């Protein structure tokens, strides 16, 4: 085999290679007019919901200065992303990272055509968000009783009651509400019985069945109380294409496909496979986080959110339009990783020599 150093020397500039492979400069249709991506049955367009500034940063250990958060969001606003989750109006006692929610909300540039949803766990948070200028909010449910209790300190039923207050107020003010359902494919507290050789133990299966039931019910309740979109979260990233398919089949019986989104974590390296499965079933909204920000709070040292760059790379390759400029996202990723003094979790970013174009 040839020696690597001389091979590298002769290699085409990687930026050139990326441009060629990723159709960064042009949307898929323009670059390959002969291509028929939709013959495969995949959606023509996928909306990417960028959760890095909220979900991502919330799960980073280092507290990020307000200015840095604002700069990150401003950079993301220029990439073509249609929705960027900005912050969370939750008590700073619980989530210190989001203590500056008002300043961030007021400090960011609001680009026309871009949505800037914020989390509002209850009516108080909702009012605070509106006062700070929010025009879209999100509520976070869970398909697991244990997770609900451990995460927001109340039962699923109680949490639904709180969200109903939020959605009622939101409806009166014409504010769209997005619903999240955590633990769609597994729970860090309830997965406590390992399946045996022959079949899953009945206790484990019972808990799993209950979660599937909750998944359907919570999604249905959130949708019927007025959430325009339900994001189904594989919170601990344990899902695989088979379990994703089963879960979606169950939920699709209750909620129209157009209202569904997937929020896949890459903790076990399964995110892109799971996302591909979901879009093959017709899901056309995908959550992701720039640079794969946000580790997994349930597995020390593990990764969490899937990287926006890697998702876009895959969708570009499938000829699916997203409206997002991959290079610009990589720049924003580079910015925040430098600020956080950490390496990116995006494989596409890792594979690039530099995020700055040389030509």
């Amino acid at each position: 085999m040839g020696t690597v150093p001389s091979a590298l020397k002769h290699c085409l500039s990687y930026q050139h290679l990326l441009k060629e492979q990723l159709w960064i400069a042009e949307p898929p249709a323009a670059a390959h007019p002969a291509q028929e991506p939709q013959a495969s049955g995949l959606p023509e367009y996928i909306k990417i919901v960028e959760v890095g500034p909220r979900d991502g940063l919330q799960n980073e250990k280092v507290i990020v200065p307000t200015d840095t958060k604002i700069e990150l969001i401003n950079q993301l606003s220029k990439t073509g992303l249609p929705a960027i989750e900005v912050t969370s109006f939750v008590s700073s006692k619980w989530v210190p990272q989001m203590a500056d929610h008002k300043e961030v909300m007021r400090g960011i540039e609001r680009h026309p055509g871009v949505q800037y949803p914020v989390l509002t766990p209850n009516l108080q948070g909702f009012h605070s968000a509106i006062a700070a200028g929010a025009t879209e909010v999100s509520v976070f449910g869970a398909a697991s009783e244990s997770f609900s209790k451990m995460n927001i300190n109340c039962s699923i039923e109680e949490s639904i009651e709180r969200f109903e207050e939020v959605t009622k107020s939101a409806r009166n003010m014409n504010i769209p509400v997005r619903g999240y359902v955590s633990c769609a494919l597994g729970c860090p507290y309830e997965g406590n019985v390992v399946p045996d050789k022959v079949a899953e133990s009945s206790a484990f299966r019972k808990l799993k069945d209950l979660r599937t039931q909750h998944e359907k019910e919570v999604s249905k309740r959130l949708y019927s109380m007025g959430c325009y979109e339900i994001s189904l979260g594989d919170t601990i990233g344990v899902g695989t294409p088979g379990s994703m398919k089963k879960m979606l089949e169950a939920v699709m019986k209750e909620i129209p496909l157009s209202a569904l989104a997937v929020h896949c974590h890459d903790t076990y390296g399964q995110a892109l496979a799971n996302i591909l499965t979901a879009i093959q079933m017709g899901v056309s909204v995908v959550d992701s986080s720039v640079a794969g920000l946000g580790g997994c709070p349930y597995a020390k040292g593990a990764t969490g959110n899937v990287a926006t760059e890697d998702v876009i790379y895959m969708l570009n390759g499938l000829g699916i339009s997203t409206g997002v400029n991959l290079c610009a996202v990589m720049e924003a990723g580079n910015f925040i990783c430098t600020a956080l003094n950490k390496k990116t979790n995006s494989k596409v970013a890792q594979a690039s020599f530099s995020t700055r174009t040389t030509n």
Partner: protein
Amino acid sequence: MAAARRLLPRWAGSLRPVSSAAAATGAYPKRVKVVEVGPRDGLQNEKNVVPTPVKINLINMLSETGLQVIEATSFVSPKWVPQMADHTEVMQGINKLPGISYPVLTPNLKGFQAAVAAGAKEVSIFGAASELFTQKNINCSIEESLERFDEVLKAAREASIPVRGYVSCVLGCPYEGKISAAKVAEMGVSVVDASVAGLGGCPYAQGASGNVATEDLVYMLNGLGIHTGVDLQKLMDTGTFICNALNRKTNSKVSQASCRL
């Protein structure tokens, strides 16, 4: 040697295949053969030269996981690939368990003969879908490489030795860019190559990853109810061993997500 042991968290659930009814009917194969390329492809792309006993132990540990095919080494000139200079010692040193294949790379007739002399019972040859890549990588054209392989195939046939063929650059070439799909036939794939701990960076992109991690692949196949015969926990233990020996972090996400004891 107190290596920290990683265990899959109890909620992970994909240690063994879920009931096979979960595998989508008709869409996926029932069984997938996982070909472990860590000891060769993986180590070859690692910067640190690994001592022979470590290589032998790695292969022996992999032999206990249920993997059916483990690519052991490469009979190529040590001038080109110093990492594989100990090919004869490795081949002769490993425990060859019944039912497991230990293919070795043989770029030409000379390598093939050395491999057989060292006890190899299966060999592999490496072609590429790109002219430029072939030139840069093995210093000849695609046509010339095929002629060399013909010699190997002929000798292998006479010795009743099975030969596996690799085609590089099927989805893209670091020199030529995109590769036409027409060059590559793609039908009903039920054999997948992977590397324990995702060993082996990409020599064409500094700092980037290379091989997919066997642990992550097996995790996915387990979740799909596809049978591989591989014990994921033993595989993870093997990954921990080689990462400690190489003093590097694993590239396997499943491993990263697992608790340490």
